[in-house]
Every structure is written in C-alpha cells, then in structure tokens.
C-alpha cells in the first residue's frame, strides 16, 4: 500500500507524454492483472499509474494483407477467438486460451502480457526481506539457487537468477517471428519480440529492453502458411489455470512428410521466450518420424543446466517438443 496518482490519457501520445512528465516511479497499466497483483505483493510500488485501457480504438485486430496486427489493448480473449487467428494460427490462439482463466483473459491485454514478471516463488512471496532475490533487490542473492527449484529454468540461467519467463503468448510470438511497434518520447520504433527480453546475466532485475517511458502500441505477426500447421503445446501441473512446466510453440512448413522449415520456441524452461534453432536444424529437410521429433526435442536442451529438482524439465521438455511436432504435422495444410 503506497499512495499513487492515477490518470487515464485519451491517446497513446498523451500517455507517453504523461509518462515523461510523471518521471520516477511511473508505470503504464492496461488490464492490471499483473501490475495490481505485484502491487499487492509489495513488489511493484509505482508512484504514478498511467492507465492506457481507456484509449479509444487501441484494441483493433487487423488480419487483412500480409500480416496480423494486434493493437496493444486487444484482450487476450478477443485475439484468441478471432476467426482468422483461430483458423490460420492455432499456435497463437492456443497460447492465449491455455493461459490464465477466462476472467483474466477478458481483462488482460496482449500488450501487457508481454511484460508480465516471473512466477519464481522466492520473488513473489518474499517481500519484506524473507528470501534474498536479485530480481527484487539487486545484489541480495538468489534463494532459488540451491533451494526449491522445481519450477525454475534450465536454459538461459545465470549464477544470479534462474527465474522462468512465464508468458505463453510471447513464446508463440517468438516462434512466429513477430515484432512489436513501440512509441516513446523519441518517436516510434519497431523490434522483434525476441529482442524485447534480456537474459538475467548479472542484472536479472533488468528484464526488458524498452527504454523508460516507451509504450508498446501493437504486435505484428508476418503471415505464413506455416501458421496452419502449428500448435502451442503446454504441459502444466493441472489441466487448466496454471503456468507451463514445459511448453512448445511449433509451426511447420512441410513438403509431403518432409519438414522444409520448422519454427520452435519454448516456454516454462527458460529465462526468456526461447527460440530453439538447434531443434529446428535437426528437422530441416528431414522426414518427420517420432524418433526424429524426439531427437529435435533433445537437441533443444543440449545446453540445459538443471538445478536440484527441475532436471525432469529436460526430458519432459524434449517430449513436449516431440508431441507438439506430431500435433502440428497432423494439422491439415489448407
């Protein structure tokens, strides 16, 4: 609980201007499903909230032409059920509807989703100084390393942080080579979604590459026929309403039973949405057999560094990729 100011700008330009003016401690807020949660846990302590949810016409879903474009405020549920997305890009639709719950998906935006923070239990449950956490308090240490690390990442970790990047949607976007449009104090720019995320390295508290005051305005996905042969396969501790233990976003370009090109990205196992070029290479130009699919899965985890209780994610992750490849390949081409 900390006092904060709250405004509802009418346009993206106004929002960015308001952010610049507010200075220290300003945050955009959209659906609020992450930010309010973290405020209640005393992890985020903003001084100014700039609520972008009231911006008129900032939630359009465009599916004409050679790309899909989702404005930042489009609800997760709206994008998941868009007929073109659902038909031609199951990987995108599934990554959304397998996340959170219907109530949350109705509130949460596809823009805010990209910036959710880790679910590492030591990060979330330790405010007040109970558990050291470099992400929450830089330099304090990492309780997860050597601790209860069943949920932690095995790829992209560092000696300072092993926290999983939790989102499903970003994983699907990274597989589909999506990019974001950004509006900031110095105008607009665009960047691949993959470049939005930083590895923890020695500064795990710096998670994104956005500059202060930069706002995501849209997500753009280049259209590809591979969309139809795609899936987001998510394995979790219960049948719904849980973050991924392991997940795989897969889209295939096939020539008969031969894989021309595979796109594979992983969730639940890495410190950022994880593209798996090693797995993609194993498949390129090959006939897709169950053995090859598993070999591709295993290749993705070649550099895995498991901790004490999360070693199973290496095998489970490989099998998740293999199953995802089978599901995607079984989907019709037209």
């Amino acid at each position, binding site marked *: *609980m*900390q006092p904060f100011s709250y405004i509802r700008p009418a346009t993206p330009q106004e929002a960015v201007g308001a952010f610049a003016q507010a200075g220290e401690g300003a945050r955009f807020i959209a659906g609020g499903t992450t930010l309010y949660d973290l405020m209640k846990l*005393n992890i985020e302590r903003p001084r100014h909230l700039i609520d972008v949810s009231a911006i008129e016409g900032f939630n359009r879903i465009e599916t004409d032409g050679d790309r899909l474009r989702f404005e930042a405020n489009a609800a997760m549920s709206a994008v998941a059920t868009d007929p073109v997305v659902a038909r031609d890009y199951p990987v995108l639709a599934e990554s959304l509807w397998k996340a959170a719950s219907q109530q949350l998906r109705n509130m949460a935006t596809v823009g805010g989703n990209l910036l959710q923070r880790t*679910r590492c*239990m*030591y990060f*979330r*449950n330790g405010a*007040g*100084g*109970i*558990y050291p956490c470099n992400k929450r308090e830089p330099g304090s240490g990492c*309780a997860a390393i050597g*601790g*209860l690390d069943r949920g932690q990442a095995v790829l992209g970790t560092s000696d300072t942080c092993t926290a999983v990047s939790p989102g499903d949607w970003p994983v699907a976007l990274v597989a589909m080579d999506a990019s974001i449009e950004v509006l900031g104090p110095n105008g607009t720019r665009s960047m691949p979604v993959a470049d939005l995320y930083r590895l923890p390295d020695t500064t795990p508290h710096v998670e994104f590459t956005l500059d202060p005051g930069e706002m995501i305005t849209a997500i753009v996905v280049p259209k590809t026929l591979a969309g139809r042969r795609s899936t987001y396969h998510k*394995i979790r*501790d*219960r*049948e*719904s*309403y*849980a*973050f991924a*233990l*392991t997940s795989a976003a897969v889209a295939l370009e096939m020539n008969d039973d031969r894989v021309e090109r595979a796109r594979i990205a992983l969730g639940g196992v890495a410190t950022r949405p994880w593209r798996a070029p090693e797995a993609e290479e194993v498949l390129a130009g090959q006939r897709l057999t169950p053995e090859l699919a598993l070999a591709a899965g295993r290749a993705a985890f070649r550099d895995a560094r498991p901790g004490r209780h999360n070693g*199973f994610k290496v*095998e*489970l992750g490989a*099998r*998740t990729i*293999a*199953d995802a490849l089978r599901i995607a390949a079984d989907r019709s081409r037209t």
Partner: protein
Amino acid sequence: MSATPFADRARIDAFDKVRGATAYAADVPLPGMLHAILVPSRVAKGHLATLPVEDAMRVPGVVRVLTPDDFPPPPEPVRFPNADAPPTLHREIAFRGQPVALVVAETLEAAMEGAEHVVPTYEEQTFAATKRSALAVREEARPTVFGDAEAALARANATVDVEYESPTQHHNPIELISTTAVWAEGRLTIYEGTQFASGLKEVVARILRIDPGIVDVKSPTVGGAFGQKGWVQQQTAIVARAAMLTGRPVKLVTPRGQIFHLAKFRPNSTHRIRLGADADGRMIAAHYVSDQQQSRGGTFPSNYHAGPSRLYGIQNYYGGAVDYRIDTQPPGHMRAPHEHPACFAFECAVDELAYRIGADPVEFRIANDTRVDPQNGRALSSRYLNECLSRGAQRFGWERRTPEPGSMRASDGSLVGWGVASGTYPALVTATVASLRISADGTTRFVTTHHEFGQGIKTAIAAVLLDGLEIDPTRLDIVLGDTTAAPQQITAGSWGTFSVVPTAALAVERMRAALSELLGGRQVSGNIHQQLAAIRRPYLTVDVSQLGPGQEAAALERLRRGQYAIAGPTFPEFTSMSYIAHFIEVRVEPTTRRIRMPRVVSVADCGRVVSPRTAASQVRGGVIWAFGASLREATEVDPRYGGFLNNDLADYVVPVNADIGEIEVDFINEPDLLANSVGVKGLGEVAMVGASAAIANAIFHATGKRLRELPIRIEHLL
C-alpha cells in the same frame, strides 16, 4: 421411525447460495466498524527486540496498533478442553508468520498501509523447519498393541514392508479466515466462521480473563470448515481485545498468504507398514509405525494407525506413533486428518500384498472381512464394507480388468489403470440439545447444537422435520452455531448428522405427542400452524436433549460448559464405523505422462442416508479432496528459511474442474438402528478415506510403478 429411504430434496439453502444471499461471518454489517490487519513475524524463531508503532500510527486512518503489551500477562496455559489455547501477541516468536501486532484503522486500506509500517527487529534463533532438521525433537507415543504382530509376521506366508509419505497440506477454502468482534453494553459478541462456537466463547474468555457469561459467539454459515476452524484460531482473541480497547466493532479478514502461517494444516507424515498374510490369503499381522511433523507445543494426535486397525479382521497388530517437534505453528485437523494419510499408506500396502500373493485386490479385501472390532472383540453395529466392494466392482466393471500392470490401453495410447481401496472412519456422536417451536403464524424455528458449513446439516434436519410434521417448509428457520440460541458443540469428525438427526427425530416425536395432547381428541383440519391458529394457541414448543448410546449424562453438562461431549466409536455394547470403497480409473499419457482421472465409482456405508443430494455431494467432494491430496497439493518448506514458501493459490496447486472426471456415487443405505433411532452413521470424512490409495493403486496398475510419496507428479513417471 420407519426405515423407508428419505426422498431426494434440494439443499434448504440452495436458493440463497446461488443468489449470493447466504451471510457468512465476515458479511455482518455493523455501524462504525473498524478494519484490522495482522503483522506477521518475518523470522522463524526468536525474540522481538523492538516493535515501533509510531510510523504506523502516523498513517491517516490508523486508530490503534495492538502489541504484546495490550494483553493480560500470559495466564497459565489455557488447556481447554484438551488442547492449548492459541497464543495472543507475544514477544517470543515460535514460527514464521506468527502475529506480532494488529493494526486497527478506519478503512481496510489504512490498516494495510499501517501494517506495512510496523517493522519490528528481532533477535533471531536457529530453528528446525522440517522433521529431518537437526533441532527436531523426537517423541514417541504409547503404541496400540493387540495379539503379537512380530510373531505373526515371522510365520506369515507373504509379507510386505513398505514406507509411504504424505506431505504438508493446507486447507484452502474460498472463505478466508475472519473474526469480527463487538464490545458493547458489557458484552463481547464474536462473529466467526467456526466449528465450535461454545469452545471459542470459553477459551477467548479465559485468554482475555473475562467472564464467559458475557461472551456470545455466532457462526452463521461457515465457508469450508474441514477442521481448519475446529479449534479456536489464533486471531480470535486478538481481534476481540481490539474491540474491547477501541470500543468499536473490529473486523479482520486475513489475506490468503497469511493463512498458510496462521491456520491449522495437515502435517507431513511418514508411514512404515509391514503386513503378513497366511497361505489362505488372510492377513494375520500388521505392524504400523508413523511419524509426523509437530509444533513444539502442539497436541494434534499422532495415532494414524487407529483407523486401519479396524479396516479388516487382522488379529495381530502393532500401531506406533512418533512426533517430531519443530518450529512451526501447530498442525491440526484437515478432512480425514489421520484416516486419509493412514488409509493411503495402508490400502496401498494391502494392494502390494494382494499383488505379492497373486490375489485380486477386490477379492483379497472381501476375504479379510471382520464382524467384530479387532481391537476389543466387540460386535460392529453394522458393517457393509464387502457390499460396498462388490457393488462398486459391479458398477465399475471390474471383471473386465486384466491384473497385469501396464496391460490395459486406451485408443489414444494412454496407459489405463484401475485401482481399488477401502476406507473407514469412526461413527461418533455428541450430546445434543434442541428446541422446536411451531407457531400459528406459519413459522417454525428449530434451534440446536452444531454448525452448518455446507455439509448439508440443515438440509438433513429439514428432511426429518418435514417428513414427520405437517409444517410450512418455506418458513422453516433452522438456527445453528449460535451460543445465544443453544449450547454449541464442536461439529467435526462426521458426527453432526449422527448427533442432530436423531435429536430432530425425537423433537418430532415429542411435538406430535404434545400436539395430540393439546388437541385432546378434537378433529382440527389443516397443517399444524392452522391447527394452532384454530385453537388460538400462538405457538407450541418442545425441548429435547439426546446422548449417544451409553453416553453418561454428565456429557450434557459438559456440552453446556462448552467442553467436549463426544462419544464413540466404541460404545458399551458395540463399535460403530462408516465404510467406503472407491474404484478409480487413471490414464497416463504415453509421452509426457500426464495423469488423468476420467472415472470414479464410490460406494459408501454411512447407515441410512437422510439427505441423498448433500450426501452424494459430500462423497464427490471427498473424492476431489483425495485427488488434490494425491496428485496436486503440497505446502513447500525451504529448510534454510522455515515457514511455508508457496503460500498462495497460484503456487499451492489445488484441483480445477478440468481435472475431475465422472464420479458415480452409491450408498448401501442400510439403517444402523443400534447406533441411533434413525440409523445414521457419519459420511463427510469417510468420503475421502482410501480414495488416494485407489488412485496410487490405479497408477501402479497402469504403469507398474509403486509411487509411495504424495503428491504424485508428472516427473515421477517420466
């Protein structure tokens, strides 16, 4: 009372519940209410060095910060009726999350902000976080012994020697823990979702050193009890004190995260079981030793073996129990507190033994039936476990099962496993009083001992009243859990129905007699309200009380003083137990090994079923609890820090709807007329017992893997 089956009736409170009209304790609106938030200890053990409250007092809206100085010096430990009263605010820190202060404010927001500004300093001490910690203190309870288990094991034809483990688990009902207290006109009124309003009244009075006679407790409807609210909770006296000091109503609703350290929980327990069978496939020996996580001063019993000792006719038995005392809040009762972990372990061991001797798990159990209580040779008042097993097997289609592990497959390639297990739970009863008033104005009021928490006790009472009396069902008011209306007894251990239903039946009988006396042979038409109106009698009241079979009359006096007044399962002439058999299908995905439970058949012997709808609902709920306990839930402790790490619903994984397949419920529905006049035993607890074993046994049948530690997770089958 005739033994014809009771009709299926809707829940008496169903309409209110779906409209959100049912009032829970925290819903009581009171003028001038203050809001409170607890400040939990950050350290796991130690001493409060400083507790500055000035910063909190500066937060606009904060009215008062209660600290240990605001409480009477700790009295002699209040052991009442047979457990320690929870501490109030203390400088000695016994566990992480222990409340050290209470911030009271005009608004909830101010209370929260104030609580953040109370930042105590501590002198920390080393602590034991788990059973395995070096500082854990081992304490052995006296064993239960009959026959000679060691000797019988030595001569057995086949034996198993296995160890099972059940994790720490926390209740997570939707209703958060809350207390609202009002101090006005010399009386203290407490609104709280509790299973024991009268006990709460007595204990809070003793802690605060006031006369219990000026304390009233109201527990309107509890949103999930299951033992979490069975004993006086930690926050109650603290909030009551705040109301006394501020002179205003004070309400505390604890955030979910704090509940993990404030409330009772199911302790981690380990169960080593040795079983022996003779050449005929009869179990002749059981040697069962369990240990559990216990707090330093906790009194939660450690006798897990008590239930399994009565499940079959095993003549030679050793049941031992060990506590490991560590630095945690006291563990306590959580649905089927001992019987669930015990029957998980025991019924898995029985399955292992059946496989060892090549017997069908259902037939093996049926062959080990008993007609007497093996502990003391007394007759069983009724026992239809074999009927539960054979009816369940038939409904489930057990004859189509191939016994070889891994031998059954679904069309999608999933491994299919079919498992069975039995469960038992003692049939218990309490002294109970009731008052029934039927009025000429069309209303009926039935006031009695015991509490409603969704189990359907009001619906069961209504069934008896409406079957026996011609009254207006829409204007029937059943008042429970209110110390101003009737002395209250802890409602737990599945004894609610056994206690109140026969009492309601007695009230019906007396009412009919009183009415016929009043009418004196006159023929008056209409229902009872109309009859009373016709003879110009505003109302007619009968007061009744009832004891369990052979229960001494002093129990009624104990009931009036808010003390335990419970009897069973051994009564002078017999032992009474409820029974259940669960048949469960699991499917294990071939690659990623997700475990699913598409189908369950559960058949219970709970005596006569008074309320078919709520009874079936209890069984479905019990099976879902067991599913959660077996495949989902564990509270995690990082031994370096103590306390519970995954203290929210995102990380404490409970089952969701999508997890649960078809659950078919059936009842033997044979009245147990030795137990009481209506023939009811208990159901709420036994519903869960054994279902975890059926799941684990099904997983073995599907995969050939014996998984002996709960929860079973995806990684255990990879």
